[in-house]
């Protein structure tokens, strides 16, 4: 059966469309819904096997990226999200979605102490392609056996927090960890951390945008060499796991 995915949008997220498209390409059916509307209508969304929180600028990033959406997620849907994960169902938060999941307390984990995605070391918003080394331990990375490539586009992406459940590390062109060197590590994250898992491995948060590299034509180097570094297997891993729940 085709699993159903909920893309949780709000005021300001803007990569909801391409995130839904990537999940569909990976085999899911998707609905893009506004958190305000879900709250207002009080719909039951326990039928969704996968929840995705897209990138963008929720509430204009006022008072810190993802803070206000994170408070809404925790306050309005904290129980539902916890129940969703308890049923073994996957969650992904990308960029602003990652920031919101951290602010909501879903990442890195309840016992991990404070964590934050702080301003980039450069002090600037930065959009560039990066290489990512996937780490095992989650359905999301189960189908990734080589580095993936995709763009980052953020001003607040420097991971400040524990580094015991790393999902992705920024890497150089040779596939080695960036070692903090700019621009391979675009924001100065400690330990080159680009993404983390929660203790179950079901919840993934990452700053880069895998949804922007799931087609050949997304690849800036496609004229130069065979297509490589596709992020589609990331979504396929999550969707396949969701299908089994």
């Amino acid at each position, binding site marked *: 059966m085709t699993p159903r995915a909920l893309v949780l949008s709000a*005021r*300001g*997220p*803007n*990569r909801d*469309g*391409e995130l839904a*498209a*990537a999940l569909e390409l990976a085999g899911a059916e998707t609905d893009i819904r*506004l958190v*305000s*509307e879900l709250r*207002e209508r009080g719909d039951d969304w326990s039928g969704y096997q996968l929840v995705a929180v897209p*990138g*963008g*600028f929720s*509430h*204009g*990033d*006022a*008072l*810190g990226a993802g*803070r*206000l959406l994170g*408070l*809404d997620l925790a*306050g309005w849907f904290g129980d539902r999200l916890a129940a969703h994960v308890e049923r073994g169902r996957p969650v992904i938060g990308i960029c602003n979605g990652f920031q919101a999941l951290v*602010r909501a307390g879903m990442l890195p984990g309840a016992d991990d102490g*404070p*964590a*934050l995605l*702080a*301003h980039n070391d450069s*002090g*600037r*918003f*930065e*959009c*560039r*392609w990066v290489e990512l080394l996937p780490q095992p331990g989650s359905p999301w990375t189960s189908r990734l056996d080589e580095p993936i490539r995709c*763009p980052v*586009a953020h001003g607040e992406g420097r991971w*400040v*927090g524990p580094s015991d459940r790393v999902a992705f590390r920024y890497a150089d062109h040779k596939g080695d960890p960036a070692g903090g060197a700019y621009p391979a590590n675009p924001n100065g994250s400690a330990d080159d951390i680009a993404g983390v898992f929660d203790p179950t491995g079901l919840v993934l948060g990452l700053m880069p*945008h895998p*949804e*922007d590299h*799931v087609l*050949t*034509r*997304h690849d*800036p*180097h496609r*004229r*130069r060499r065979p297509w490589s570094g596709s992020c589609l297997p990331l979504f396929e891993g999550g969707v396949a796991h969701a299908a089994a729940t």
Partner: protein
Amino acid sequence: MPHRLVIANRSGPGRGDHLVSAARASGHAVRDIEVLDVVHVDGPVDDDGLARLGELLLTDALHELVEADRVDDGQLVIETGLRPGVTDVTATELVAAAARLGISGVERATTGHRYLVDADDGLAAERLTVDVLVNPVIERWAEGVLAPAFVDEPPRPPEVAHVAVRDLDDEALEALDRERGLSLAPAELRAVRAHFADLGRDPTDAELETIAQTWSEHCCHKTFRARITFDDGTVVDGLIPMLRDATEQLDRDWVVSAFDGDAGVIVLDDDVEIAVKVETHNHPSAVEPFGGANTGVGGVVRDVIASGAKPIALTDVLCFGPTDLPVDEVPPGVLHPARVRAGVVDGVGDYGNKIGVPTIAGAVLHDPGYTTTPLVFCGCIGVRPRGTGIDVPPESGDLVVVLGGAVGRDGVGGATFSSRSMGAETVGTAGSSVQIGAPIVEKGVIDVVVAARDAGWYRSITDCGAGGLSSAVGELAEGVGADVDLDLVPRKYAGLAPWEVWLSEAQERVVCAVPDDHVEALAALAADHGVGCDVIGRFGGDGRLLVRAGSTVVVDLDLGFLHDGRPRAVLAARHPATARPTRRALPELDPERALLDLLAHPSLRSVEDVVRTYDHEVLGGTVVRPTTGVHLDAPSDGTVVVPLGSTSGRAVAVGVGVNAAWGRHDARAMAEAVVDEAVRNVVAVGADPARVALLDNFSWGNPRDEIELGRLVAAVEGCVTASLHHEAPFICGKDSLNNVYVDPDGLADPVPPTLVVTAVGVVDDVDRVVGSDPTGAGRLLYLLGGAEPVLGGSHLDLVLDADHGGRIPVADPDAPAHYRRLHQAIARGLVDACHDLSEGGIATAAAEMAVGGDVGIEVDVADHGDAVAALFGEACGRLLLAVRPEQAEDLSAALPEARLVGRTTDDRRVALSVDGHQLVDLSLDAVRAAREGRQP
């Protein structure tokens, strides 16, 4: 008494580093600046509420509340805040979030900064603050603690003043025009006087302002519609009709809408149309660079959504003075070019990034001519379903609905402001004419309008921009009439006069005509997106524009007079001379040094520091990026996007043509050349030259200067000639005139005549696009285009501060045929890479291809009697193609006029020769370093 909260970053002072650099660049001896955030909340919030506010909304793992008055010995303390009424998105979100979290009593808030400055004794606090920390146009400041300021005025009864115009003689009318800043011409003032004399009454203040806004250069393009008479008796019967006639003559069946409505529209494929618009936002960006550029993007995006299209890409062309201009050479009342550039780039990026539309194409030009009059051209491309209605008028009985935010005194008089010249005093007085955007609100407006379009909930829509409701409602009501009650318009604060509500240019609003049946659904949709949706009146009546504040009549105007009553302007022009001075004797040129200087020039060097701050990937449709190559560090000619979900395989290519130098020499040839450049740029990435549409944006000086106007006419004639030549129709245009700085002695300094041509082309097969970067060594290089390169008005002259004399490039009659054959070669997969030759000639183009491909390059070109011109000269219609050797025969057959001039190599050197004599031999590293402004 508002509560004051001060927030510090635990990780220390690093946030002030760029301020320290900026302060030192302005000559202030500053050691360190620590930046703290200050929030004031006002209202009956209790201690528990304040504590929760601090915990949930203001502090986190890195940020803590601190004692407000902590100061180290010897530190200078400066606090800043926005002027009352200036858009403060953070404060608005804070108040809303407090309510959602159940923290009661937070009625309003302000945000600001506290700067702790370590400096030597004798630091001039005021100079430092104004140079680096605030822009007084939108911000207040104090040494020490700055008390918060809110707009605190009592509500006032709707008062309407009448302005006596009937009894004024011509001289007194003109004095009234100056006093009220109406920017109306004498003949227009007389028409207003006659109209109200006929009515037997004087106009209200709001009526007079409505007329001034509607008749402003900004809103109705009176120069471009004027009848122009030359001193030799030649008559030009309107510039817009000239461009429109050329488009009608070309009669392309894929043009859906040209010079009509808010944007130009062409067909992409069986299902999708492309709407495109480019706007200028020059004056606001000169006085408040961030806010001006910010709202420039917001405005052009609303033009596109008001055409029923969903934005998919943004463009920006920015023209600044030299960023290394010595501080003491900055003219009075002018911001330093480095500050203008930083603010504008931030403003463009902030808006585009936050509405989630990729900024994919543009240019950054630096020329001394733009120091006093920087230029900002913002463009937007959108998609909509085939057959979306265009300019459907409201029907009598439709509701007047405003989507978006509330109004304040924002930008009251912006259209007339932007139609005036800038002066030394402008920065100090322009306050209310400049606004800050709220992209988060615009994002909601986009989503609501696109969903409402698909549901068919509105009949007509227009942007609420310059002139506010007066222009928007006035425009929609033409031929129908409207009755509006200003009491129904939501306000940011009390105390606004009716005319201020009517004229407010509060951003992020559109006006729709909505049938009664749909208003409830539209309101529910808007509520889900957190977007205001207010019914303020009804279209219809007897064709009049009736505006009330409750029962008080504020405006009662005949719409026929408002839209057709303006006497057509008659302007005088003279033909500008195009003769060039004979060349000056030049020092011996070192070709290698010249190439490195060209590559390092701010207009040619790497723009990564700009484009990387723009999200050019969002929406997942970017196929050719602003930068390309192995390290994505070489410039692309055009860029290409695919609408999300498109299945036809077709894509949209965008290219820009602009040149700061040529317009001063020969406006006609300049126009022809920049059209050629724009077309060439989209063809170079794979667009079909038979399906390229053009947009014109003129930024010019004073049209009442007869020579300036003569240049403008020549440029428009050049556009028409080039449009017919390339069979590429113009579909939309916008002019910005009176870009003149008047110094304290009354001397006028007009902007260099600047024409930005944007080309939008259709790519048939997104998998067959090419880049400017060769994909490896061993590629053969072909030069297409036989026009002779010249040095008149060249970039080499700008870099050398020289004048080689001679003419500027002229159109190549063979270019359209070359582009057609090149396109076929690209479509057949015969072209590995393709780069346009522009500023700096073949030398810079070859160097950029080497950087993109991360390969060496060898080029040997024929001498045209001047080896310097052969390398660095500029000409129309030229491109360098990289071709795989095994495809060389096919390429030569397809493009017999392309001449083999070199190849890519694996020795990582850039070697350039003329007639076999090597003049340049540089390492790729040296070339790359020059482009990045660093030592190799």
